């Protein structure tokens, strides 16, 4: 606190005594001011940070301005110090007002911000996991980029705590591989998640990030990257460890030298990437590399008190940040201005050793001013018009045509490049406004010296791509799910009325209407498919969550497990994806906890690699989605399961079960094959959830396992919940719809196959097994149904011990069914999954096969006990 107030005084003194071109003094004042700003953000003193920002802005402008203008700005800054001081005193006195209520606009910004976070957090988690497995620079950079963006966004919505956390993570990501700690990243992600959730729900925020993270890193396997529980205290590892203030002259010199060579390398990188961008404006990696280069230059320049360099690099970074965030595309104008910025920075870096007051800086100050103006113009232009605006100032618009000159120059190759370069350098040194043409030529050749092949390639692509400059970005729409639902619903209606119409047309009119009719039907089907596809989302996010689960669990249980996924881009109805997470979670936990052997030695003895493997796989098969959870662990022990089931009285002693039937027993609540119950799984409840959820999605769970080799749980799921293939059946005068997926076989029974067993009722001999029969007319109390089973149809449904035959009078036909709820007024009706509008306009009821079976078999068991 004292330090902050003394900072204010120091600034006041500096500004009072400053010469108009004393950049060092301005830089010092700026640094101090930034320290105040940071302090204010940390303590959420909105007024202080606001006042500090004003001063920072003024100082920044002063650094850029002509001497006379600079003095005026400095005076203004000096005047702004008073409110700053007052606000600090107020904050110190605790008189700072609490957070004021958000207005509507802020509310919306916040909502949008929150909406974006899940995807971002997912990306963070995914990248952290990837980096943990295999440290790749590109991934680290991407993670860094995400942190940086999040930091910026958090600042916009005023989440200082998030901002700080990101800052810390960013700094320590910059430290490279040896500083990377995935546990720390993941813990941060978890913390962010809970923080965002608390903001969204208006709940109290989680404990401060510092505490949460400190716990993790303290107990983490790797050495803690923080020397104190206050993460903000970490110095960026990439930067020199000693601040220049305490550095001796010599150290300063060597630092400057280092900076010059480093910055030169970065600027070269930028040029190479810019060339890539010329040919592919959408190349995200290139944008990120450029962004990162400017960011580093900015950081180091700030450290060395090279304010002008820092300032210009910051401007360029801003521009690239917008491109990164898809707020604008890398237009030719933007590329040009970036090229020019690179040139200017290069010139400034070469002057880094000169005194800030040296007249050599003068031309660069003008250049920086001009470039800043251009960058701001581009930013302003793109923020006004979010579409890729081709229009721009005429000079810059001519740029693409002019590029050809540089191109030809290089292409001819006969022109001595060195000569050209000197000419261009002279032109650049003249501090007149650089023409884009000249600048570009110079840049191309300067880069050409380093990597001529790249330039040539870029030019070739550039020429080919000349007519189409627009970045190819698939536009993403965020649409209210309700609207999509309504769309799908009304398309469903359209399909039905078209079908009804088709019936009518067939009856009345021969060929005339038929053609039109079939076209209409085709359009309807197309629309329906399209509408349904709107609801489709890839499984990727769900799978990635599982990656995290496997990792955490493997650590917890201390067994090495590798996780892989296949087909994560498979798309599935959002409603299904949302609900499949829980079952998958249970299955994956089970795979790690029960599937994989607890000791690598056990695996080695079985001739398996030391690391266990859990794989998630998704693929289409015959109009269904199959999701498999595979492990290469011990496999299920059928005997143990059966023994346990007999102990618990789930299976009679004399009952003989097939292997599949035995495996299905693990879905029974309360049956656990784990010899010991851990806090992770093994209570049998999880498996019941799996089966229940999958069945409620009208899917099935299959198990394949081999003792000692591993287990595969396969979930068969319908593509979408909105539309199903249904079999329409008739019983007496009533019609019902049965999901085709649930029907295994349709049987026209012979009398010889039918018999009645005491205590079990009617059964059908089917492939050597007795299958109990359920008459729909009995279950649903339908009067007037066919009594003679041989004149009925039996639909074979369910598997294993739950297999049964449903007796109906007649099959009417198969059709696509749009499922509707029966209305909240009725609640859940046992055995009915919902309703569907039939082609005659009445409602048909859809049978919930799993529900029907469970009530039937449960009550059957009750009866058995009663006897």
């Amino acid at each position, binding site marked *: 606190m004292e330090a902050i107030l003394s900072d204010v005084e120091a600034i006041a003194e500096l500004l009072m005594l400053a010469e108009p071109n004393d950049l060092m003094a301005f830089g010092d004042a700026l640094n101090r001011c930034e320290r105040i700003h940071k302090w204010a953000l940390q303590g959420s003193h909105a007024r202080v940070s606001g006042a500090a920002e004003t001063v920072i802005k003024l100082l920044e402008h002063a650094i850029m301005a002509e001497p006379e203008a600079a003095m005026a700005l400095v005076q203004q800054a000096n005047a702004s110090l008073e409110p700053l001081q007052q606000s600090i005193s107020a904050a110190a006195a605790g008189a700072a007002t609490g957070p004021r209520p958000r207005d509507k606009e802020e509310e919306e910004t916040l909502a949008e911000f929150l909406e974006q976070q899940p995807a971002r957090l997912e990306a963070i988690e995914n990248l952290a996991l990837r980096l943990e497995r295999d440290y790749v620079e590109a991934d680290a950079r991407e993670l860094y980029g995400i942190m940086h963006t999040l930091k910026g966004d958090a600042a916009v919505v005023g989440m200082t705590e998030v901002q700080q956390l990101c800052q810390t993570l960013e700094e320590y990501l910059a430290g490279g591989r040896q500083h990377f700690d995935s546990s720390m990243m993941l813990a941060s992600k978890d913390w962010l998640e809970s923080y965002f959730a608390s903001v969204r729900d208006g709940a109290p925020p989680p404990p401060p990030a510092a505490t949460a993270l400190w716990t993790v890193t303290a107990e983490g396997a790797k050495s803690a990257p923080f020397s104190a529980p206050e993460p903000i205290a970490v110095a960026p590892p990439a930067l020199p460890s000693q601040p220049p203030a305490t550095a001796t002259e010599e150290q300063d010199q060597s630092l400057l030298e280092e900076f010059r060579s480093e910055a030169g390398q970065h600027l070269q990188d930028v040029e190479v990437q810019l060339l890539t961008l010329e040919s592919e404006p959408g190349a995200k990696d290139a944008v990120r590399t450029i962004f990162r280069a400017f960011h580093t230059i900015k950081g180091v320049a700030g450290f060395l008190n090279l304010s002008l360099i820092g300032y210009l690099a910051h401007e360029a970074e801003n521009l690239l940040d917008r491109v990164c965030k898809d707020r604008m595309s890398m237009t030719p104008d933007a590329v040009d201005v970036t090229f020019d910025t690179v040139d200017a920075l290069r010139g400034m870096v070469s002057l880094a050793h000169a005194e800030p007051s040296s007249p050599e800086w003068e031309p660069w100050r003008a250049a920086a001013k001009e470039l800043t103006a251009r960058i701001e113009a581009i930013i302003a232009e793109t923020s006004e018009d979010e579409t890729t605006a081709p229009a721009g100032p005429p000079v810059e618009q001519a740029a693409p045509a002019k590029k050809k000159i540089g191109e030809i120059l290089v292409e001819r190759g006969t022109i001595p490049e060195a000569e050209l370069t000197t000419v261009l350098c002279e032109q650049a040194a003249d501090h007149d406004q650089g023409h884009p043409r000249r600048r570009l030529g110079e840049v191309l050749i300067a880069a050409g010296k380093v990597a001529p092949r790249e330039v040539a390639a870029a030019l070739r692509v550039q020429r080919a791509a000349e007519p189409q400059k627009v970045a190819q970005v698939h536009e993403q729409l965020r649409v209210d799910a309700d609207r999509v639902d309504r769309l799908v619903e009304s398309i469903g209606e359209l399909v039905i009325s078209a079908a009804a119409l088709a019936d009518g047309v067939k009856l009345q009119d021969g060929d005339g209407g038929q053609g039109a009719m079939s076209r209409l039907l085709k359009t309807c089907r197309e629309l329906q498919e399209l509408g349904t596809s709107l609801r489709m989302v890839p499984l990727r996010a769900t799978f990635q969550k599982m990656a995290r689960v496997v990792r955490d669990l493997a650590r917890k249980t201390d067994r090495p497990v590798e996780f892989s996924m296949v087909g994560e881009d498979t798309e599935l109805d959002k409603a299904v994806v949302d609900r499949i997470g829980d079952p998958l979670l249970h299955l994956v936990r089970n795979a790690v906890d029960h599937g994989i052997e607890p000791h690598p030695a056990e695996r080695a003895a079985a001739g398996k690699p030391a690391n266990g493997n859990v794989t998630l796989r998704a693929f289409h098969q015959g109009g269904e989605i199959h999701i498999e959870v595979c492990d290469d662990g011990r496999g299920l022990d059928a005997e143990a399961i059966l023994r346990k089931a007999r102990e618990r009285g789930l299976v009679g002693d004399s009952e003989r079960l097939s292997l599949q039937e035995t495996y299905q027993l693990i879905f029974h609540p309360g049956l656990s094959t784990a010899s010991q119950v851990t806090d992770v799984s093994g209570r049998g409840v999880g498996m019941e959830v799996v089966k229940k959820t999958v069945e409620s999605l009208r899917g099935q769970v299959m198990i394949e396992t081999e003792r000692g080799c591993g287990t595969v749980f396969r979930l068969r799921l319908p593509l979408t919940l909105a539309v199903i293939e249904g079999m329409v059946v008739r019983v007496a005068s009533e019609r019902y719809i049965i999901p085709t997926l649930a029907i295994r076989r349709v049987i026209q029974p012979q009398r010889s196959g039918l018999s009645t067993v005491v205590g079990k009722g009617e059964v059908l001999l089917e492939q050597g097994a007795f299958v109990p029969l359920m008459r729909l007319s009995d279950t649903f109390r339908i009067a007037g149904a066919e009594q003679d089973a041989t004149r009925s149809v039996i639909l074979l449904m369910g598997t294993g011990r739950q297999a049964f035959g449903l007796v109906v009078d007649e099959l009417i036909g198969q059709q696509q069914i749009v499922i509707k709820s029966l209305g909240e*007024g009725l609640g859940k009706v*046992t055995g009915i999954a919902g309703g569907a509008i039939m082609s005659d306009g009445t*409602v048909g*009821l859809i049978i919930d096969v799993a529900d029907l079976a469970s009530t039937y078999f449960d009550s059957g068991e009750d009866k058995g006990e009663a006897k």
Partner: protein
Amino acid sequence: MTEQQESGLQRLAGKYLSFVLGGESYAVQILKVQEIIQMMPVTRVPRTPPFVRGVINLRGKVIPVIDLRRRFELADREDTDRTCIIVAQVAQGEAMVVTMGVIVDEVAEVLDVRSDGIEPPPAFGSAVDTAFLLALAKVSGKLVMLVDIDKVLTERQVAAVEQLSR
């Protein structure tokens, strides 16, 4: 009658849709009525109480319909061409509004029930379970029973469904 009860009854004044059931006049608050539709084919839903006639397709939405005769435990009667379905929006629980249909013998007219004509429901002697009635009202000399449609369509329904499915 206490004053409190009286002021409670006064609040019932307003516009009502009257209908006929078993020769007697009933009415529901007009604000609860969404529309009146002609009788249409109803799909029976198994394992529901007898007074649930089934479900209908109301322009693409499936809604349940209640047979008010059965709900009031009056004798069944064949549907006629005057039989109607009153589609009502009823409150269920705290924040949910549910659309349901009510089958009545015929719809009569819109009544203006004035506060001075409202009396508390009789404790006994009515053909209908008085729990379903809000009050009695005298409108131009005729007696009309004001029906508590929320209660008719929601109360004890879930329980009944559960019982039957056992």
